[in-house]
């Protein structure tokens, strides 16, 4: 790994994320059952929970890839996907939602890089398409970001020519290109070979030290202990308990948390 330490970009302010009483269901299946969560600026929050507990859905509700049935999410006091009209919430236009998503980074489990674009274009696409930067500036920024995640020599490669760990680092650079105030990670290392997990976690750790707000869904308990300011344990679409890793991971108060940790540790 040749990743340099990430300097906090001067123009980016770490965001606050607030989730208010969010419920989400598919048909009769309730995925989220009233989630309340506040993530302070610069805080690193790790969400743990068994599969099907709703942790990925929660992450996807935050950037409005999924619409909550009840409740709302705000980032820096700006409602996401809806606006207040009198005492009701009204759905925003697609264009407005897309603009909001540009301020929230998202990193997928399966990377979802654009396979027909080079690594450089993958990173430079969003700033150009959203009109924030001209093409030369965006490419300059992309080069800089790829250098930071240790892939300066891969700019002209296509994603499928890279290893999983390299692809995920490109995906992180792609998310950073929009200078988001918060970055959401949906199991960023679950699709990787064990030996490639470390390089991705190292990049996320660097990111955490720059003071960007991070919300990370992961199964890497050791990593959570190392970087999390707060660990949130979710089961059955509810928050069972939350607190600093020294409490939730080492002295869990709930039976369900103890049970889960005993299985994954």
């Amino acid at each position, binding site marked *: 790994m040749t990743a340099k330490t990430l300097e906090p970009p001067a123009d980016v302010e770490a965001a606050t994320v607030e989730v208010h009483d969010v419920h989400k269901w598919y048909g009769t299946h309730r995925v989220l059952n009233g989630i309340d969560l506040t993530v302070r600026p610069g805080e690193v929050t790790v969400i743990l929970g068994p599969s099907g507990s709703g942790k990925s859905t929660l992450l996807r509700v935050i*950037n409005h*890839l999924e619409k909550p049935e009840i409740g709302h999410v705000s980032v820096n006091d700006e409602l996401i996907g809806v606006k207040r009209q009198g005492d009701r919430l009204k759905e925003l236009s*697609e*264009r407005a939602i*897309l*603009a*909001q*998503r*540009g*301020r929230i980074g*998202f990193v*997928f489990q*399966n990377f*979802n*890089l*654009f*396979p*027909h*674009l*080079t690594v450089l274009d993958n990173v430079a*696409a*969003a700033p150009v*398409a*959203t009109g924030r930067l001209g093409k030369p500036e965006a490419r300059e920024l992309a080069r800089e970001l790829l250098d930071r995640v240790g892939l300066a020599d891969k700019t002209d490669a*296509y*994603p*499928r*020519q890279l290893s999983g760990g390299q692809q995920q680092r490109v995906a992180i650079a*792609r*998310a950073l290109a*929009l200078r988001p105030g918060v970055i959401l990670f949906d199991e960023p290392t679950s699709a990787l070979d064990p030996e490639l997990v470390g390089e991705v976690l190292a990049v996320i750790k660097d990111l955490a030290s720059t003071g960007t707000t991070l919300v990370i869904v992961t199964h890497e308990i050791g990593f959570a202990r190392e970087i999390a300011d707060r660990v949130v344990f979710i089961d059955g679409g509810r928050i069972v308990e939350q607190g600093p890793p020294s409490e939730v991971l080492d002295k869990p108060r709930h039976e369900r948390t103890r049970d889960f940790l005993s299985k994954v540790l």
Partner: protein
Amino acid sequence: MSEPPGAAVSLAEAPSADAPSKPLAAQRVLPLRRPGRWIATAVVLVLVAQFVHGLTTNPFYQWDRFGYWFLRPTILDGLLITLEVTAYSAVLGLLGGVLLALARLSKSPVLRAVSWTYVWALRSIPLIVVLLFLYNFSALYKTLSVGVPFGPAFFSFDESKLATDMVIAVIGLSLNEAAYAAEVVRGGILSVDQGQHEAAAALGLPKSYQFTKIVFPQALRSITPNYVNQLIGLVKSTSLVFYVSLLDLFGTAQTMGATYPGDIVPLLLVVTVWYLILTSVVSVIQFYVERYYARGASRNLPPTPLQQLRTGLTDLRARIRREAAV
């Protein structure tokens, strides 16, 4: 079963016959002989030779007349018409197909139903019927007007002036082509991974950018071979425009054949060879288009025919050298 006493002896002796010359590791493995394959190859070669012999020596084909007609200006004019009709219909058909596919994939049930019905109807009606309908269209509707249905018209055209034979042919073929292209395009769009849509949405890319720069280029990879298949069908379908009195390649040959009845066979050969050439050109273009859209999808691009030839020759040379060395 009792073994013949000689068996064990011969088995023990067998290796000693060749073995002393070379150690086993240095011996080449003799490839398996395949006599069946050689016989089949010989039979096919004989059949091919007979076919070529018939084609070249049978006076029925009148190759001298073929030479006379092949580059005749009337034939080339017909070829030009065929090319024009194909080009316009291919482009308009693909555009229509993209619109129909988007309508079919839209969230509006009305758009979906209209698109489905269009494809259903146009795929059911024979192309020749569509063309003849359009040909008689000016009799059905004297004027075409743009306005509110059942209400006032804003402006209108005299239909007979608007619809030349060429326009009728292109419209007919495009209407038909769009129905098939719609399914090809829809299949291509559906073949793009859902994660691509999500990633584009999560990055906040504008909707039009998502389609034109992310989803459609990836869909083109599976659209291309299917659409080219469609296109080759279209090249040949253009021969039907003869029935709406447009003299394309086939139509010209047909009329010339009526004037010179003795030359019908060479004229059909001329048409056949030209269609073969057109299809070959389309296939070559297809190869390079597919290669272009394979960027990123496969780790290495498939070699061009030239590169294949070169590696083939290199391999052959290496093999001959190896054989000679042994």
